[in-house]
């Protein structure tokens, strides 16, 4: 049976976080999943949910209307922010008929209609429930990896606010840890600040504060004893990997936490090369983990 998947790349991944796009593409190819590109896509509007709420709902509804128009039952946004943006907008529009009509008025100019039929599936949810945990385990499990301890960063947008139905328990999610253990690793299922923010949303208006939040989070990861931090969120990745050094210099203490995308880790386990999953773009110290993985 051939598998197909409609992916929505968002803004940040295709304009900057190339490692995430590369690794996601290569991993899905290796797993035999055909990627269907969402045509005519644009920003999901999420950054503007505070400053211009209606712009947000329009852009989010537009993406879901495109998915309906192109005949997809469900789409997977690779971006955490896009995921939250779409499910929140869907929830919000469903409670507000006036808004629905107004948004559809705008969408009609482009020949689109929003009906709210498309399911929005998180990347973690996809691997856990759609590709499914059992198939993943059959494909990649290796018990020799058990000695390596890995911890997770879900990212706030994956889990909160929990009043909107999510793919996992918003107060103690486990699916990310499950898909890490499906590869053979040991997942650390709890540490202080585990479900806390990385500080990324502050980078637009108060970067120094954002970097401090990031450092506190990373220190907590370090104290958990994990050999690697894994995330699927590119905002968390940018903070915890690429801006780790800036956070260290602002706080005056080095941490040296290795960070990877889940798709990069999965790619390595599938036998892809470091370059194929874009590991040359990771700025955090991942060398030691890579050596251990090869042993």
């Amino acid at each position: 049976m051939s598998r197909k998947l409609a992916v929505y790349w968002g803004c940040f991944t295709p304009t900057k976080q190339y490692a995430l796009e590369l690794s996601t593409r290569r991993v899905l190819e290796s797993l035999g999943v055909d990627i269907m590109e969402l045509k005519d896509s644009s920003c999901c509007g999420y950054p503007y949910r505070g400053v211009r709420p209606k712009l947000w709902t329009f852009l989010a509804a537009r993406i879901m209307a495109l998915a309906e128009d192109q005949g997809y039952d469900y789409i997977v946004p690779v971006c955490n922010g896009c995921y939250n943006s779409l499910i929140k907008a869907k929830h919000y529009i469903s409670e507000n008929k006036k808004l629905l009509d107004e948004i559809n008025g705008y969408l009609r100019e482009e020949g689109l209609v929003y009906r709210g039929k498309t399911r929005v599936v998180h990347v973690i949810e996809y691997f856990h429930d759609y590709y499914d945990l059992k198939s993943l385990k059959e494909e990649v499990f290796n018990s020799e990896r058990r000695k390596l301890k890995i911890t997770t960063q879900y990212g706030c947008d994956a889990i909160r606010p929990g009043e909107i139905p999510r793919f996992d328990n918003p107060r103690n999610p486990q699916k990310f840890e499950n898909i890490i253990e499906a590869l053979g690793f040991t997942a650390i299922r709890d540490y202080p600040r585990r479900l806390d923010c990385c500080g990324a949303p502050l980078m637009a208006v108060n970067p120094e504060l954002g970097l401090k939040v990031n450092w506190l989070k990373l220190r907590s990861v370090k104290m958990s004893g994990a050999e690697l931090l894994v995330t699927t969120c590119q905002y968390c990745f940018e903070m915890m990997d690429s801006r780790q050094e800036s956070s260290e210099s602002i706080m005056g203490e080095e941490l040296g936490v290795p960070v990877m995308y889940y798709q990069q880790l999965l790619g390595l386990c599938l036998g892809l090369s470091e370059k194929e999953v874009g590991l040359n773009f990771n700025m955090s110290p991942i060398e030691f983990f890579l050596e251990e993985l090869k042993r």
Partner: protein
Amino acid sequence: MSAILKEIIGLQDPDVCYQCRRCTSGCPIAYLVKDFRPHRIVAMVNLGFIEEVLRADFIWDCTRCYKCTEYCPQRVAPSDIVLSLQALCVERGIRFPDEYRNMILRISRTGFSFEEMEVADREMEIYDRKSLGLPPLTPPSKIDIVGKIVLSLGGIKE
């Protein structure tokens, strides 16, 4: 006044807050910024001190992690209140951070919030989509129509 905020983002009624401070106790920003106290923001809104809050810098310090909302026993949603205050700030012309304005302008031209970048890897080699073999990123085919709607909903004149 809280009715106006409610209209903007459809949040829960903040009037039921009984100031237990659970929001503040778990807030990663309250831990770092002395003036940022979610329970106090809710109290100020309930008491009608909207003008004061709107002009305070700290409403832009929220990292939008929604922890306060998740753990509020009254389902008050302090994070949504802060976001509504930001919306009101913009609507009244008190503050509209340039970063957002520029991003909205960019969507109206390209469809996306960010510019396609050249990125350096660990060896300081420069890459872009083309050199990585990624398919080109193109604006929506009807960007002229989308762009106009984006500018009008973003409240921006070209």
